[in-house]
């Protein structure tokens, strides 16, 4: 029973990270039809921004030493600026480009960011123990819950509720949803295209920054490719959830988290190193069963 609950918490906290990544990718896909492979590198930049830029092997805290109340907005601001710059320099000139061209461009951005990080910080991984207080456990009777996982789950819930309220209740949120459904029609109604896209990049940046901090707190290690597998799993979550549906992205994120956690817990020890192969096999099964994802993007659910 106890181990079941602990596995469940594991699955929820890993799923939370994937869901946050999937939301960041899904939001841009919804509006721009852009599959942003550089999203993982936004996450990496958020993590590196914590330390002093130098190629030395030992990481020196810079922003990472701030009080969390200051740290969080600082990192978010840096990643948001990066995301907005990426839009202005790369994607805005490509507004009329075909979808594959956009994806290739994001691939290029991903490489440029990773190489830039190597140039500034060196290629060797660095240890960084952010927020040691979070490595403890909360005891609930016999149950011991890792503080960091609880923090991860709660943060994710708060962000998701915030995003849902923004999209549902504010005029900018409604404009974003309208643009995601029919960009040209939204512009015919006076919705400013570049503003809506900029907001999507900014929100995507905030989500990436939060993932940076949560993920780094878990692993304690900085490397220039740290966001790449996160973006891959996030993208998988978006696809199995149903491209174009944000609810789908969240569901997909938690599902991928659950699959990976269950495999980690219940695969025979000698097979655990193949965990990700099994996880992707599951993904293929899901796609065979539901080729367009679990949640059909409702835009296609139109009356004929």
């Amino acid at each position, binding site marked *: 029973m106890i181990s079941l609950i602990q596995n469940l918490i594991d699955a929820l906290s890993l799923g939370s990270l994937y869901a946050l990544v999937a939301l960041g990718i899904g939001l841009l896909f919804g509006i721009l039809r852009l599959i942003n492979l550089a999203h993982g590198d936004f996450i990496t930049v958020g993590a590196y921004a914590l330390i002093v830029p130098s190629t030395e092997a030992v990481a020196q805290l810079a922003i990472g030493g701030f009080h969390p109340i200051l740290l969080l907005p600082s990192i978010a601001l840096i990643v948001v600026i990066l995301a907005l710059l990426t839009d202005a320099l790369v994607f805005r000139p490509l507004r009329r480009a075909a979808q594959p061209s956009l994806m290739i461009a994001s691939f290029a951005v991903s490489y440029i960011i990773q190489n830039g990080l190597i140039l500034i910080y060196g290629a060797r991984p660095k240890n960084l123990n952010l927020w040691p207080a979070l490595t403890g456990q909360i005891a609930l009777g016999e149950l011991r819950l890792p503080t960091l996982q609880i923090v991860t789950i709660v943060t994710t819930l708060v962000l998701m509720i915030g995003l849902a309220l923004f999209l549902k209740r504010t*005029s900018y949120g*409604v*404009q974003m*949803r*309208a643009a995601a*459904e*029919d960009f*040209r*029609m*939204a*512009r*015919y*109604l*006076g*919705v*400013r*295209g570049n503003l809506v896209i900029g907001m999507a990049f900014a929100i995507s940046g905030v989500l990436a920054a939060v993932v940076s901090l949560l993920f780094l707190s878990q692993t304690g290690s900085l490397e220039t490719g740290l966001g790449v597998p996160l973006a891959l799993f996030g993208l998988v979550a978006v696809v199995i959830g149903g491209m174009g549906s944000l609810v789908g992205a969240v569901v997909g994120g938690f599902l991928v988290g659950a699959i990976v956690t269950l495999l980690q817990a219940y695969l025979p020890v000698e097979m655990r190193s193949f965990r990700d192969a099994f996880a992707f096999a599951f993904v293929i099964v899901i796609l065979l069963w539901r080729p367009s994802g679990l949640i059909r993007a*409702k*835009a296609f*659910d*139109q*009356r004929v």
Partner: protein
Amino acid sequence: MALLTVENLHVSYGGVTAVRGLSLSVNEGEVVSILGPNGAGKSSTLAVIAGGVAPRAGRVTYAGQDITGGRAEEIARSGISLVPEGRHVFATLTVEENLAVGTYMHKGKADIAGVLERFPRLKERRDFPAGRLSGGEQQMLVIARAMLAKPKLMLVDEPSLGLAPLIIDQVYDILLDLRRQGMSLLIVEQSTSRILKHADRIYVLRGGAVQLEDTAANLRDGEAIKRAYFGFDEGAA
């Protein structure tokens, strides 16, 4: 005074030429109609006026300003509303949210409740996702949404397409109501009869160019329109 003038417009998509040398104008308070067969270039013309498509050549002037090739959102904000062909409702947004999108350029200061009074079917379904509405209800919704943008000029592309005659009557009742309130209208249609009754002036388009242009009164018997529409040689017919 001409509210809108289009001069010598040329539109092409890659190698396909859709409009060649078209000119037209809409005066303040006027209802003007563009008639023409499939592929004549009617929707392309409206798209250029509304800023959705950049023309290859030509000039669009609105209220004395050159708006050629302007951004769609800025043209919308300057008082031109396009109701495009094929009912572009935001399917997952509720009816009320769809209407709200039309109001944001006026900082939300628009009378959604008042407009809903004139569309009882929409009022009943205000919390429905727009994608679930019937075709006629969706057509009502896109017109109501465009009304809330408070344009001076509304461009309406084939409002009667695929609707039952009774619903078409309702759509035209609303359009004529707008005209009575001083709005100018440029309406694209394929069927002649209703337009002859309601428009002030008519342009017949074929092959991307104006074949015939006259007042509805002069074209009342429909014969000249038929010839221009189908391209029969005038002498032979």
